[in-house]
């Protein structure tokens, strides 16, 4: 019993982390129709920024670092989008190659700058004491991560579905040309979306740091997870990404514990079935 509850909570916290990872990817993919394969690298950049900043500057705390890394990665993402990706609007294969190439470049740059050893990201002091939940002991930080994921989901929902800015972005998705004809600066809004998606990935990288650490190859570990979550949940559906994150959180956690040698099969098999038999994902809409 204890095993199931502990692993269940582990699944939840992994789900939270996966949502923080994949929400930015989902946002960019859903609104801009751009499969940003640099997303895992943005996440890893965040983790490295966090690890280095917290190692070298004792005055910083994890939260401030996460926000700072989010802003830096958002800015880098914005530059990348403005300078390169806007030129590839009608060239999906070009987008795939460029974003993947950028991921490799970032990955190598991290290796050169910060070496091949993993760098830990310390858990905040006040969250190091475990929490007792239903008589079980559980790492407090992981619970906080779930709460942050939920808050992020709500924040993004409000931004996209309940504000004028969000409606303008959706109008640009519905009919880009017509949106421009009513005065909406669609191109600028899409840059904002890209910055936001990249920034969330960067901040998520720092927040995932205490669990994952910064290490070479982190990007390549995270990118497939983001893809699986978004495809399972439904392309462009933030709600789908949210549910998908927790489903994958459970599958991955229990898969690795129960059948460690089959973890990737357990992870990728559902995705393959979803693509084959329900291409719009669990919560996605066809044709959007």
């Amino acid at each position, binding site marked *: 019993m204890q095993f199931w509850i502990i692993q269940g909570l582990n699944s939840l916290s992994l789900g939270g982390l996966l949502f923080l990872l994949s929400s930015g990817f989902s946002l960019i993919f859903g609104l801009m129709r751009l499969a940003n394969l640099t997303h895992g690298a943005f996440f890893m950049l965040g983790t490295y920024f966090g690890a280095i900043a917290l190692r070298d500057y004792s005055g910083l705390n994890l939260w401030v670092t996460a926000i700072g890394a989010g802003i830096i990665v958002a800015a880098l993402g914005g530059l990348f989008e403005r300078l390169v990706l806007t030129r590839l609007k009608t060239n999906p294969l070009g987008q795939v190659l460029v974003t993947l190439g950028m991921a490799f470049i970032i990955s190598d740059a991290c290796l050169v700058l910060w070496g091949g050893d993993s760098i830990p990201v310390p858990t905040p002091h006040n969250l190091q004491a475990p929490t007792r939940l239903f008589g079980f002991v559980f790492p407090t930080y992981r619970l906080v991560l779930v709460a942050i994921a939920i808050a992020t989901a709500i924040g993004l929902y409000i931004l996209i579905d309940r504000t*004028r800015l969000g*409606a*303008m972005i*959706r*109008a640009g*998705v*519905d*009919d880009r*040309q*017509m*949106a*421009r*004809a*009513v*005065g*909406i*600066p*669609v191109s600028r809004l899409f840059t904002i979306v890209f910055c936001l998606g990249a920034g969330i990935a960067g901040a998520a990288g720092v927040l995932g740091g205490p669990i994952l650490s910064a290490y070479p190859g982190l990007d390549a570990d995270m990118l497939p997870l983001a893809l699986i979550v978004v495809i399972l949940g439904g392309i462009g559906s933030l709600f789908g990404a949210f549910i998908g994150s927790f489903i994958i959180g459970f599958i991955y956690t229990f898969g690795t514990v129960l059948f460690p040698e089959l973890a990737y099969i357990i992870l990728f098999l559902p995705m393959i079935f979803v693509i084959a038999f329900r291409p719009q994902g669990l919560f996605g809409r066809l044709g*959007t």
Partner: protein
Amino acid sequence: MAVEALALANVHSFYGDSHILHGVGFSLSEGEVLALLGRNGAGKTTCISTIVGFLTPKEGDIRLFGEPIGGLSPERISRLGIGLVPQGRRIFPSLTVRENLVVARQRERATTKPWNVERIFALFPRLEERYAQFAGTLSGGEQQMLAIGRALMGNPRVLLLDEPSEGLAPLIVAEVGRIIKRLKDEGQSIVLVEQNRQLALDVADHAVILNTGRCVFSGKAHEVLNNEELIAQHLGVYHAH
């Protein structure tokens, strides 16, 4: 002398490789309605697309109250005061009725009575009833009203209506006609593209007829109404012999 609201001079426009507009020119005076007529394929919609910036004119001059707008981006042209009710309505289907209006809001120009959501709802009570509904679920007539409302939200100095009666039931067509008259009475400058000649000439002051991308007539609207020859030559349906 009336102020020139919109003026085209010698405009050449291409759609891909096809040369569609061959030196089109006309001018709309402030507060007037200009009917842009012609058969299918005469270049009416290409003309509208060029004015709003969907197409870049290869040659020629387009001016809005004296300011050149030819070749600017659609968002810039919209912000300078061109409002578009496009052919096929093109409302944003996944936005609610209210959102469709709100996203098109622009900073108020120095107009006497700026448009806002409340005034649009007063003009189109049907839209108010459906304000929270997704626009894609509206009927054709309601979508047309929404498209007009959306264009008005930008407080345009010139409103372009591209076939607003297309595909609508006669009762709704009449209502669209009344709305256009009402906007004219409020001083709105309008370019009206129509297949429905009667509707267009009823409300228009001036008429311009396009044929294969050239202006073949420009004059008072009532001059077209009773000119059988003009109608047969440039507007009427071809009859197979």
